[in-house]
């Protein structure tokens, strides 16, 4: 590797990391938080079997799991202005990401809730608990524990998916890399470098996952 390439790698590192810290991480965290909220509501509606709302939720999950995230981003950012809805790039990205995460995570959470053994639910009823008490004290604590690995899958997936926001003019890490690559004619080194930064972010999440799982185990919940 020539000295020039090494110099480009070093000089561009902070230029990449900065949008990573300013865009990639907040985009991921905010979208995942909102997505989780959507997921809990969606899963609850489907399990509680609330008529029309349940069908709406099924439709939502079907659509957002069945279409590419890139298409969803394009519809929200480039498509909606046609019917008078103009959104800035960042809100567009957050909406698309959280709806997408919500659809996937709602299935994870729904599955975990359903996998809490029926016997414990009967036991809770037999001691006189209400549906709400049963959910709060027995079902949700166990469902959340069970869904941790799958939810971290979604979380880690989202870190990388935020690079798609480059397509709707968000100057996140990947877009900045593209610009530097175009200016320096060193795509190989630079794309490997940006991949490495994503890898570091995801590795941090892997450790967070281990920590969270351990914490749940200690409490036995």
């Amino acid at each position, binding site marked *: 590797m020539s000295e020039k390439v090494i110099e480009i790698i070093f000089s561009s590192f902070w230029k990449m990391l900065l949008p990573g810290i300013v865009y990639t991480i907040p985009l991921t965290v905010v979208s995942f938080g909102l997505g989780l909220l959507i997921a809990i509501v969606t899963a609850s509606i489907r399990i509680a079997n609330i008529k029309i709302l349940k069908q709406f939720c099924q439709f939502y999950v079907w659509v957002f799991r069945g279409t590419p995230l890139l298409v969803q981003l394009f519809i929200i950012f480039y498509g909606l202005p046609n019917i008078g809805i103009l959104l800035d790039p960042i809100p567009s990205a957050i909406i698309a990401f959280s709806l997408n995460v919500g659809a996937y995570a709602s299935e994870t959470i729904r599955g975990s809730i359903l996998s809490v*053994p029926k*016997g*414990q639910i*009967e*036991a*809770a*009823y*037999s*001691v*006189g*608990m*209400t549906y709400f*008490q049963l959910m709060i*004290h*027995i079902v949700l*604590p*166990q469902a959340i*524990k069970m869904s941790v690995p799958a939810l971290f899958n979604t979380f880690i997936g989202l870190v990388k998916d935020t690079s798609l926001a480059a397509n709707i003019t968000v100057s996140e890490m990947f877009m900045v890399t593209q610009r530097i690559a175009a200016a320096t004619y060193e795509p190989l080194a630079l794309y490997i470098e940006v991949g490495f930064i994503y890898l570091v972010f995801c590795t941090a999440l892997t450790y967070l996952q281990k920590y969270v799982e351990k914490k749940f185990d200690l409490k*036995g*919940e």
Partner: protein
Amino acid sequence: MITVKNLYKSFGHLDVLKNINLDINEGETLAIIGPSGSGKSTFLRCLNLLEVPQKGEVTIGQHHYNAQKLDKKKFLDIRRSTAMVFQGYHLFENKNVIKNITLPLTVVKKIPEKEAVQTAEKLLERVGLLDKKNYYPSQLSGGQQQRVAIARALALKPDVILFDEPTSALDPELVQEVLDVIKKVAQDNITTVIVTHEMSFARDVADRVLFMDKGEIVEIGDARQVITQPHQERTKQFLQRFLEN
């Protein structure tokens, strides 16, 4: 204490309980025996409304329900005047032993935490598991889990405790420790209904035995009499193998 009138329950086209009428006295221990599929467990589960019968009336202590006029409050009232011990123990896996007993007390009965813990510890001592109070269910043997489940039921001070085949899922060598605990409960004048396949236990511990077949009460009477000298042909048939041993 418990009155059951014309209780009827079907699953689809299958009549599981056909007009059951029964009185259970306060402090009595009633054992229900019968072949699988005879409706024993369903009957028990209708008493605390884990199954909802189509017709009939049940009175338990202060509370009364008519199957055709049920509402949410009735479900809670009836369930709060009963407690159940299940075949599969069904302890709350996310709570340790002591929490399994105190949670229903603090959440359902609104008893202060401190008082609940005292009650729980007393009962754990009685079932011989005080030293395991901080264990989680998965760290206990089946027999130990079932003894915790019995303590959980006792803590609620219900009008009646319903045992649904409490020893059927246990290894043979663990059955006795659970039966010993149930025996103590039965002797304490707590109204007890127990569905069981342990014939000698029913004979020795119960006051009365009820033999059920195909959703009907075939025979009911003094425990020793029904088990050792049944009147009905069907009961004799069912008990034949036990009597021969």
